C-alpha cells in the first residue's frame, strides 16, 4: 500500500459541494489509494466526473510514489519506474478483491462443516448401532432414541452397492442403455433417499415425532439386514435359504424400525399406515434385489420373452458354461428351466 498522501481533503477543495458524500468515503479510509470497493458508488456523479476524480487520485498517488521511489531506487532497477509499480499495485488490489469475494462465496456454499456433527462417531458406537438395528425393542410406550448420524447409513449404502455389483457380475446381468455401476448406485441411493423422504412425508401426515435426519439414519441402519442376506445368498444360491433369511433377518430389521416408529406415533390408524408402508417397502426391496439378479429365473425369462425385448430392459442369459465360480450342471439346469417354461406356457 502506498504511503498516504498529504491531506486528501485539502487537495479536493475544488471538487464542489455535490461530491461531499463521496469525499467523506475516501477521507474515512485515510489514504489516497484507490479503493476498489467504492468504485461502484456513483451517487450524484457522472462517468466523466468519476474519471476526472480517479485521474486526480492517481496523480496524487504518483506524487507520493515518486517521493518513495527516490529512497528505494535500488529496488526498482530494471523495472519500469513508477508506471510499472502502479500497474502492479492496481493489479494486486484487484487480485485481492477478487480473491476475497471468491473465498467468501466458497466458504458460504462449499462448507462441509455443516455436515461435520453428523459424522462425529466412534467405531464402538457404530458397531453397537449395527447390532441394535437387528434387535426389536418391545418398549413402545415412550419414544425410543434414534441416533442422528450419517456415517453408518452412508457406509451401509456403499456396502450394499458393492454387494449388488458382486451379485450382478456373478449372474452375468447385462444392462442395456446403462451401466452396472450406475444401476447399482442408483438403486441403492434411490431407495435410501427416496423411501426415507416418502416415509418422512407420511410421518408428517400421521403426526409422528421424527425428523428427516432420524429417518435417514433409521432406514440406513435397516439396510444392514439387507447387506447380510444378500451377501450370503448371492454366494449360496438356494431358494429355501433365501426365503428363510428373508423372513428372519429382513423381518428382524423391519420389526426394529417398526417398533421405533410405533413408539413415536399416536393413534392406531396412523401407526398402521406408517408401519405397514415401511414394512412392505423394506421387505419388497429385499425380494427385488435378490430376484432381479438371479440366474435361474433369468433363464426362464429369456425363454418366455423371446427376441422381442423392449429397450431399457435387463437381458437375462442362460447359465454360462464357463463360469468358474460355480460348478453347476449347466446343461441340466438349462433343460429344467426350459421344461418349466414350456409347462408354464402351455397353461
Amino acid at each position, binding site marked *: 500500500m502506498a504511503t498516504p498522501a498529504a491531506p486528501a481533503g485539502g487537495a479536493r477543495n475544488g471538487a464542489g459541494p455535490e461530491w461531499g458524500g463521496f469525499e467523506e468515503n475516501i477521507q474515512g479510509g485515510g489514504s489516497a489509494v484507490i479503493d476498489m470497493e467504492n468504485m461502484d458508488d456513483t451517487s450524484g456523479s457522472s462517468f466523466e466526473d468519476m474519471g476526472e476524480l480517479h485521474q486526480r487520485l492517481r496523480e496524487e498517488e504518483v506524487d507520493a*510514489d515518486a517521493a518513495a521511489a527516490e529512497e528505494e531506487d535500488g529496488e526498482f532497477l530494471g523495472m519500469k519506474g513508477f508506471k510499472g509499480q502502479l500497474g*502492479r499495485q492496481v493489479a494486486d488490489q484487484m487480485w485481492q478483491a477478487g480473491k476475497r469475494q471468491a473465498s467468501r462465496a466458497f466458504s458460504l456454499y462449499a462448507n*462441509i462443516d455443516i455436515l461435520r456433527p453428523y459424522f462425529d462417531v466412534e467405531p464402538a458406537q457404530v458397531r453397537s448401532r449395527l447390532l441394535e438395528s437387528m434387535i426389536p425393542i418391545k418398549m413402545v410406550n415412550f419414544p425410543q432414541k434414534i441416533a442422528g448420524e450419517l456415517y453408518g447409513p452412508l*457406509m451401509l449404502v456403499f456396502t450394499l452397492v458393492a454387494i449388488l*455389483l458382486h451379485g450382478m457380475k456373478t449372474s452375468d446381468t447385462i444392462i442395456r442403455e446403462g451401466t452396472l455401476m450406475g444401476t447399482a448406485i442408483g438403486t441403492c441411493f434411490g431407495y435410501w433417499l427416496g423411501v426415507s423422504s416418502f416415509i418422512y412425508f407420511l410421518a408428517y401426515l400421521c403426526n409422528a415425532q421424527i425428523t428427516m435426519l432420524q429417518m435417514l439414519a433409521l432406514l440406513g441402519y435397516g439396510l444392514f439386514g439387507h447387506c447380510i442376506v444378500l451377501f450370503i445368498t448371492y454366494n449360496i444360491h438356494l431358494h429355501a435359504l433365501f426365503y428363510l433369511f428373508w423372513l428372519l433377518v429382513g423381518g428382524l430389521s423391519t420389526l426394529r424400525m417398526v417398533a421405533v416408529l410405533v413408539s413415536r406415533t399416536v393413534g392406531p390408524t396412523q401407526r398402521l399406515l406408517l408401519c405397514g408402508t415401511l414394512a412392505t417397502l423394506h421387505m419388497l426391496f429385499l425380494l427385488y434385489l435378490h430376484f432381479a439378479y438371479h440366474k435361474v429365473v433369468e433363464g426362464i425369462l429369456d425363454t418366455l420373452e423371446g427376441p422381442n425385448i423392449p429397450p431399457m430392459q435387463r437381458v437375462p442369459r442362460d447359465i454360462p458354461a464357463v463360469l*468358474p465360480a460355480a460348478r453347476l450342471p449347466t446343461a441340466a439346469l438349462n433343460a429344467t428351466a426350459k421344461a418349466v417354461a414350456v409347462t408354464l406356457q402351455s397353461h
Partner: protein
Amino acid sequence: MRSRIREFDSSTLNESVQNTIMRDLKAVGKKFMHVLYPRKSNTLLRDWDLWGPLILCVTLALMLQRGSVDSEKDGGPQFAEVFVIVWFGAVTITLNSKLLGGNISFFQSLCVLGYCILPLTVAMLVCRLVLLAEPGPINFMVRLFVVIVMFAWSIVASTAFLADSQPPNRKALAVYPVFLFYFVISWMILTFTPQ
C-alpha cells in the same frame, strides 16, 4: 506501508520442455517407489501431485475396456465408468475422512489414494497376461490370488500414509471406505474377461 512487488519468477518458465518432463517423471517415479515399498513417510503428502493418479487411472481404464463396438454386449465397465468410479470414489473418501476430523488436505488425500492404485494396475497387467493362456479353474485361481495380494498391498500402502492424519481412535472408520473402494476396483479387475 510498503507496496507489494509481484516478482515474476521465471526460473522454471525458461527451461527446456525435456527438463520439465524429466523432473515431473522423476517425481512420479519416486512416489511409485514409495507406494511399492510403503514406509511411514510423508513424501506423498508433502509434494503431492496428480500426474501419477491420472496416468494410473487412464491405464487401468484402457485395459478394462472390452474393445467391442457392439453396445448390446456391453456388460463390462467402459472407460468413462472406471474413470468416474476412481475419481468420485477418491473424492468421497476424502470428504469422509475430513468430516471424521482428519487434518489432511483435499488434494493430498486424492494424491495418496490415486497413487495406491498402482498395485491394482500391476494386478490388471498380470491378469491380462494370464488370460492369454487357456481358461479354466487354475487360471481363475491364479488371477484371484494375484488380485487379493495386490488388493491387500493397496490397502496397506494407503493406510500407511493416511492413518496418521486421523484421530487415533477413528482410524477404522476412515479405513473402511478405502477398503470398499479398492474392493470395487479389484472386483472389476477380477471379473474382466476379454471377448
